[in-house]
């Protein structure tokens, strides 16, 4: 039993050292950098949980001394808390790296303000993180939050702040503006998960889940005879695809077609194989299916007349992908009756569209604003001017942030050669010069968005 106790103390000491080290890292990062408030909140949370974990470890050793026969159980408990800290460890460094100077802060602030207009999300905050992967992630924060809640119960600890989401950006693209519009999709995941975790769950999400079960029952004839695990797995599969389409439509409603173009740009960067465009994977619907939904929404909401005729390959890509009939979609995953699963999901799409429309009612971008300000904003860019204010019919006007963002993306897709033509010794076919001016366009856009948001915050209601 002495050996068992010694083992328990060693386990506790080892975990104590890990926790102490993470705690010191957070304290050092906070002292060295300026953070957006959600990142600071998260670092503070970690510091507090570290203190509480240390007390938990003392209690575990004390219980081991008092009840030696419980030592194997106590060691399993320490093992579990250690695994929790491994997960927390995974979040802390990317959040610590994402200080203000490394991020497109105006875009993240704008996106957060947009999300706060979504029903039940007025106190939403988003922790930005930098990932070494060339990928955007919305950290599965429901899962992580549930872990933090369970861990809080286990160590008598603190909970994460309410409505805190986690979005991870590739470190290489972090300073960019246009590519990072993809974060709007990730914020859709955040909103979905908050709705799902609400108590009681959001009515729309609960209704959509019932609809999923109905679609599965309808499109898989022997579904009721499947084992509970298989039925649950099929439901989770359809749920993954549902998340993705929900998030795409959510992003389009909040920021408009700029999201579609940013998504195409990012897909190009990932060099997705053409044969994968029609393939449903475990986690994602086929890109053709997604862009069918993009175009459908852009047409329905009145954006398409303004962007459908842009002379850009990205517009052609959207047209081509969305035109692929659903009969050509294929399953790129193993599972029971994959074709029927896809059919069940396709039948669910009207319900997904309805839910997105409902929850974003007060957060949607306006195609009319875009149409109204677009030319003036693009003219400003053409002259290298930040379009925080534009002059229209002799009067100064402040464009909306979404109009600026969409005009900027349209300018990027169609007018970079015109901009460079106006400048001395600049060649639109010179890649490095072109990259330089794209970077400048992003800087102007970011500055304009920041200025406009400041003006809005300072304007009394």
């Amino acid at each position: 039993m002495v050996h068992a106790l010694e083992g328990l103390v060693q386990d506790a000491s080892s975990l104590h050292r890990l926790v102490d080290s993470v705690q010191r890292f957070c304290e050092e990062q906070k002292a060295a950098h300026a953070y957006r408030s959600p990142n600071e909140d998260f670092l503070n949370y970690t510091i507090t949980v570290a203190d509480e974990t240390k007390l938990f470890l003392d209690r575990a050793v004390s219980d081991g001394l008092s009840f030696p026969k419980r030592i194997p159980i106590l060691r399993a408990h320490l093992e579990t808390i250690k695994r929790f800290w491994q997960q927390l460890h995974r979040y802390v460094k990317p959040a610590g790296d994402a200080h203000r100077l490394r991020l497109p802060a105006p875009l993240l602030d704008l996106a957060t303000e947009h999300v706060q207009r979504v029903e039940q999300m007025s106190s939403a905050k988003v922790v930005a993180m930098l990932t070494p992967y060339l990928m955007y992630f919305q950290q599965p924060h429901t899962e992580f939050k549930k872990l933090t809640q369970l861990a809080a119960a286990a160590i008598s600890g603190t909970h994460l702040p309410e409505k805190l989401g986690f979005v991870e950006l590739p470190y290489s693209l972090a300073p960019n503006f246009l590519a990072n519009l993809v974060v709007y999709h990730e914020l859709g995941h955040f909103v979905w998960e908050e709705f799902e975790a609400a108590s009681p769950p959001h009515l729309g999400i609960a209704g959509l889940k019932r609809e999923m079960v109905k679609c599965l029952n309808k499109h898989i004839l022997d579904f009721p005879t499947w084992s509970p695990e298989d039925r649950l797995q099929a439901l989770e599969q359809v749920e993954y695809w549902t998340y993705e389409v929900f998030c795409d439509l959510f992003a389009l409603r909040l920021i408009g077609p700029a999201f579609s173009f940013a998504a195409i740009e990012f897909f190009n960067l990932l060099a997705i194989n053409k044969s994968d465009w029609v393939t449903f994977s475990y986690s994602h619907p086929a890109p053709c299916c997604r862009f069918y939904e993009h175009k459908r929404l852009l047409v329905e909401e009145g954006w398409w007349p303004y962007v459908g005729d842009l002379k850009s390959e990205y517009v052609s890509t959207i047209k081509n992908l969305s035109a692929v009939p659903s009969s050509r979609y294929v399953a790129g995953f193993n599972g029971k009756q994959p074709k029927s699963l896809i059919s069940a999901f396709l039948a669910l799409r009207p319900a997904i569209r309805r839910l997105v429309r409902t929850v974003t009612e007060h957060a949607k971008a306006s195609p009319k604003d875009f149409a109204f300000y677009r030319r003036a904003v693009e003219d400003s860019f053409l002259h290298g001017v930040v379009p925080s204010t534009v002059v229209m019919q002799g009067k100064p006007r402040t464009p909306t942030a979404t109009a600026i963002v969409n005009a900027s993306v349209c300018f990027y897709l169609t007018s970079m050669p015109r901009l460079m033509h106006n400048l001395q010794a600049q060649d639109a076919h010179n890649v490095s010069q072109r990259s330089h001016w794209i970077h400048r366009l992003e800087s102007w856009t970011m500055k304009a968005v920041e200025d406009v948001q400041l003006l809005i915050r300072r304007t009394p209601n």
Partner: protein
Amino acid sequence: MPVDLQGRGQYLELALFSQNVVSALLEFVDKDREDRLESSLKEALASLNAVASGDLNHLVGERVAAFASYAQLKTLNEVWSQADKDEAASMIRSLLQSSKPVAKKKAQAERLVGLFSKLQNQALRDFEQPLNAAVAR
């Protein structure tokens, strides 16, 4: 979703959930403290009832504390037989009845500690080796 947590977090959730049930039971058995007993046991019972119903809408629509994902349900079915599930639910119901003699309640709590510890250990193993576990997405 981050590569290293994908599909594994649910195992850790199950391990932590089991740990919280075990801790509440141990406090009762060893320290005569019942602060967390009722809430922990009610959550466990609601989760087991949802599994027993076999109704997908019940399992995923009512936010039960555990077993509402494929990974967790598979782990449960791996380590607990149907008899274990029935016995656990029955003992939890019995523990929640305050009229039972304390000695009998403690004996049942001890048996539940064994069952939930087994579940916790399996969940930890699955977390460590998701490729060998029920789901490895």
